[in-house]
């Protein structure tokens, strides 16, 4: 069913779901949403299953013409948004009808917003996922970011009787200075002082920050005397912090599968949304946690999401 017509596409808007698993060994990265928390929230608000595809909107939002009676919700970065020229809020379901114009403007806080439509964005599944991997021209809407006049379909709409609203105290804030938690490794043994450097310094997000990775600028991170700077190429995880030849860290994200540089620490999965919401110029400080702490944070986060889902569907 035709649901949305793209009037203007915004800076970089793609269709994403949780990601494409099982093909990394063939060089196909997982892709998928960068901020899973905001993505789940958007789907909860319109009553979708948690993996329904949504639009990931970056920095400058799209302007859309609504083509059907449905619910939408926008979460994540605060962008400023109007429906038929009247301001509307994020983090709540909005009832829309054919002919409505939803204009999502520019980020005021954060970097990425998520737009969910009742029934989910309907694009063909490619290798088990609807996520766009633009580098490989696959998935999502024709394997690319959205363009003017694209016609977006959605699954079957189920209108909710009550307009859902996210609890305001649960809406994340996106400050300009962020602390992200990380576990040493996989190559922490290649570093000594380097570990002190990364956990004690401020790093600035550079202009080279995209779905593949965030390049940071700050004090150089040196490998131990006598240790090689590159290693035999191995698989990478989203959140891995790679130290390339220029000794400036890169937080690897979802469009990378293998790499031959050492990774000093790995950002915990619970904190990846914070990275996703950082923009060039923001300050990042790494805080050391253990694997055990990371796992208990993961369980807490999972419980929180489940609790919110239950609460909203009451």
């Amino acid at each position, binding site marked *: 069913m035709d649901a949305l017509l793209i009037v203007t596409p915004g800076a970089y808007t793609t269709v994403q779901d949780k990601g494409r*698993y099982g093909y990394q*060994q063939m060089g196909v990265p997982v892709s998928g949403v960068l901020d899973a928390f905001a993505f789940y929230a958007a789907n909860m608000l319109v009553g979708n299953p948690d993996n329904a595809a949504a639009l990931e909107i970056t920095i400058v939002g799209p302007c859309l013409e609504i083509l059907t009676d449905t619910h939408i919700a926008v979460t994540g970065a605060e962008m400023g948004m109007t429906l038929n020229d009247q301001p509307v809020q994020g983090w709540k379901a909005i009832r829309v009808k054919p002919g409505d114009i939803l204009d999502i403007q520019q980020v005021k806080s954060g970097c990425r917003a998520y737009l969910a439509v009742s029934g989910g964005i309907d694009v063909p599944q490619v290798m088990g996922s609807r996520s766009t991997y633009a580098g490989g021209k696959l*998935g999502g809407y024709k394997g690319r970011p959205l363009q003017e006049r694209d016609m977006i379909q959605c699954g079957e709409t189920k209108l909710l009787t009550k307009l859902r609203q996210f609890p305001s105290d649960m809406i994340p804030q996106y400050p300009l200075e962020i602390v992200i938690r990380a576990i040493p490794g996989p190559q922490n043994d290649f570093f000594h002082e380097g570990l002190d450097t990364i956990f004690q310094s401020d790093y600035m997000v550079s202009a080279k920050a995209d779905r593949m990775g965030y390049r940071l600028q700050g004090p150089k991170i040196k490998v131990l005397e006598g240790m090689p700077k590159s290693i*035999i190429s191995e698989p990478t995880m989203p959140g891995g912090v790679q130290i390339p030849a220029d000794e400036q860290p890169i937080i690897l994200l979802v469009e990378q599968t293998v790499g031959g540089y050492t990774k000093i620490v790995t950002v915990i999965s619970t904190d990846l949304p914070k990275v996703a919401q950082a923009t060039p110029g923001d300050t990042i400080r790494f805080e050391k946690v253990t*694997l055990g702490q990371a*796992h208990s944070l993961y369980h807490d986060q999972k419980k929180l999401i489940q609790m919110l889902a239950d609460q909203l569907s009451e």
Partner: protein
Amino acid sequence: MHSGLFERAFFRIAGDQGLLVEYGDEINLEVNTKVRTMAIIMKQYTPKGVIETIPTYRSLLIVYDPSITNLAKLQKELQRLEERLYEIQIPPPDTIEIPVCYGGEFGPDIEFVAETHDLSVKEVIQLHSEPEYLIYMVGFTPGFPFLGGLSEKLHTSRLETPRTFVPKGSVGIANNQTGIYPVSSPGGWQLIGRSPIKLFAPERPNPFLYQAGDHIKFKPITLEEYSRLDKEDEK
């Protein structure tokens, strides 16, 4: 002699959902065979909570769901499976023949490779298309095979400045490696030819023609054959 194979698997923590397991510290057949065998056994026995297993040259990345399993369980499982390695038969490798039109506009660096090694272009083509190459791993872009077995006479360093666009199908050399670009991407390998075959087709039930462990054999073709095969593949 040092085989590069570790006596015991070496575990590295790759965040709260990744366990990296190293089986050796060299790129060689023995180490890579162990990695691939472990990948096969993991696929057969898929321990609970394992989302994905990714084999590379000498290591395996296990992606897991921490709400279902944990590090201690996974390590135990991996050690248990390693003890059963002898039961596992690696399926015989497929050999995939890949037609390549060498030189000309498809291989802008072939003359540089020839000059570097004091060879003729014809000799480069012969040396490159003779061996059956082992696919050590696939990565970098969808379906990009890292091949072992390149003749020492062809080892050539990467371009000083990588190209921003390498067309899909391009066949290249980087140091002791050779490979093919299944999708267009930036790249710094010395390009010596191009294949008209579609190496990655996400719409096919199996989007790939090969996997790690298979062999690749390049077959030199003429420009006419290239055009014909290119058209056939479009259909």
